[in-house]
């Protein structure tokens, strides 16, 4: 995109703002009024000396005429054209379009942004509808109740000689089922209301814990102090943890957090990260801790407002996600199986072998992330007990450490909401159609 894009529009705006007639400006700049008219309507490209002459004639800096908000508008229009290649928008005439019809151009950009927003919502809701166990059960209950009402009502309507006792029984059943249906429908509406808002009250114990952690940006100063509070006290102090299971999950998480914080004190850890070029393996060696501990600790560091934050995902030996800290652009579904191509699962198949990979998500406006993953065994039941595996993956947005020059692995969120039709690891068709 050239920086002189829409310079004509800016010249016209500046001239009108200063109350200069087109003919006067043309004369001062040494060009014809008709040529200036073409420039102002973005019908002629302009650059170099003529920009200097016009800016001097207007008494403004040349940069005022060449760099501005229109650049963002043009970039957004170009993005919109790339997002919908089937529309075959005349990309080479974007400047002309934006210059001649700025209102329509703004509308295209706004609608494109709205479409992207709705697509994200659809992905989230599709994920929820597909994998939400509450919805599945609730819909089953509703349909079963409707079946009972329909059958009972049909019996009453179609049976002329029904015994009064049976008639009373079916009427009572219909009344009870109607009441149950109403309660079921209300529960569904409440659930869907909450599903539509990611910040809504959490439903599962894991969601309750995530809400607590989200509120502190996954950094817990209470556990960082020289004399930290006990994990049990911290869990008990959080009103958001409503169920015993949620409090227990929080205690487990806080205990591990406190252990990591003690082994990897904040200032020493950040210093080591920088000293070792953000290499988790070297940092782990420095402190004599596991690489998984370094990845967890990295993900719990405080971040400055507006800065990209690292994500973290942990799974057990079955591949079930047990912990998720999202990072923008890398969706971590709450329900159902995720993409088998995540480095997390590659690490799971090669315990103790560290996996570093740059991954790319999405086929429209794809985003890249640097990931570090490792799977480590433990023996919680002692020497003769079963070996338990846990894999941990740190997800770093590009502006945290930059990307190494290694091959990029395309991945998705999960098969049902992944648009990569030709993926070798696909296990079921995508729900995303062309229309979406």
């Amino acid at each position, binding site marked *: 995109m050239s920086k002189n894009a829409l310079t004509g529009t800016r010249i016209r705006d500046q001239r009108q703002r200063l109350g200069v007639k087109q003919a006067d400006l043309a004369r001062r700049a040494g060009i014809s009024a008709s040529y200036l008219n073409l420039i102002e309507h973005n019908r002629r490209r302009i650059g170099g000396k003529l920009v200097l002459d016009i800016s001097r004639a207007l008494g403004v800096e040349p940069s005022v005429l060449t760099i501005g908000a229109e650049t963002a508008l043009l970039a957004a229009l170009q993005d919109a054209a790339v997002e919908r290649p089937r529309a075959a928008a005349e990309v080479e005439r974007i400047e002309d379009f934006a210059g001649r019809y700025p209102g329509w151009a703004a509308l295209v950009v706004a609608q494109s942004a709205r479409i992207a927003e709705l697509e994200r919502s659809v992905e989230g809701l599709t994920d929820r509808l597909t994998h939400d166990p509450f919805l599945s059960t609730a819909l089953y209950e509703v349909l*079963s109740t409707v079946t009972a009402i329909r059958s009972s009502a049909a019996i009453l309507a179609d049976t002329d000689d029904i015994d009064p006792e*049976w008639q009373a029984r079916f009427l009572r059943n219909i009344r009870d*089922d109607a009441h149950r249906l109403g309660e079921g429908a209300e529960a569904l509406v409440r659930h869907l209301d909450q599903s539509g808002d990611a910040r809504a009250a959490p439903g599962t114990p894991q969601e309750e814990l995530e809400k607590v952690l989200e509120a502190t940006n996954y950094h817990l100063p209470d556990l960082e102090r020289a004399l930290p509070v006990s994990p049990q006290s911290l869990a008990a102090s959080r009103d958001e943890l409503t169920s015993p299971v949620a409090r227990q999950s929080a205690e487990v998480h806080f205990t591990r957090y406190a252990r990591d914080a003690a082994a990897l004190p904040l200032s020493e850890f950040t210093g080591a990260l920088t000293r070792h070029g953000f290499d988790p393996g070297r940092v782990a060696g420095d402190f004599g801790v596991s690489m998984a501990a370094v990845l967890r600790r990295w993900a719990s560091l405080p971040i400055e407002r507006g800065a990209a934050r690292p994500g973290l995902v942990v799974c057990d030996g079955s591949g079930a996600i047990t912990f998720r800290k999202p990072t923008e652009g890398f969706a971590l579904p709450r329900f159902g199986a995720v993409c088998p191509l995540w480095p997390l699962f590659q690490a799971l198949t090669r315990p103790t072998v560290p996996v570093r990979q740059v991954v790319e998500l999405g086929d429209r406006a794809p985003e890249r992330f640097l990931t570090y993953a490792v799977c480590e065994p433990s023996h919680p039941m002692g020497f003769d007990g079963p070996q338990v595996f846990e894999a941990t993956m740190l997800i770093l947005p590009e502006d945290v450490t930059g990307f190494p020059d290694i091959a990029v692995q395309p991945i998705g969120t999960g098969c049902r909401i992944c648009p990569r039709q030709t993926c070798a690891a696909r296990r079921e068709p995508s729900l995303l159609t062309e229309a979406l």
Partner: protein
Amino acid sequence: MGRRVLLIEDEPNIIEAIRFILSRDGWNVLTHADGNTAFQAIQNQTPDVIILDAMLPNRSGFDILQDIRSEAATQDIPVMMLTARGQQKDRDMAERFGANRFMTKPFSNAEVLDVMRQLAPL
């Protein structure tokens, strides 16, 4: 004695409605509500037809259907599957495991009667 149908379903008001319409059509209606013991009930009662809900407490109707088809004494009993999920994959599973018919909730009484008469004609 009329034709015997074993209705394996855990929703009491659906049981009551189906029992009423089939009884008036001359069927002897037996019922069972638990997935874990359903196959045992089938073996004990040897019905002419089975109406089998796919989503039962403790055990899936699809698992019970596999048991029915794998046991010599029960493998020829016609089975009508009921489910609240009309998804193609459920239909495919029911067909693969040997269901004779598949009906999606909510269904009409007339549909149930039609199918039952087809599965066990007089």
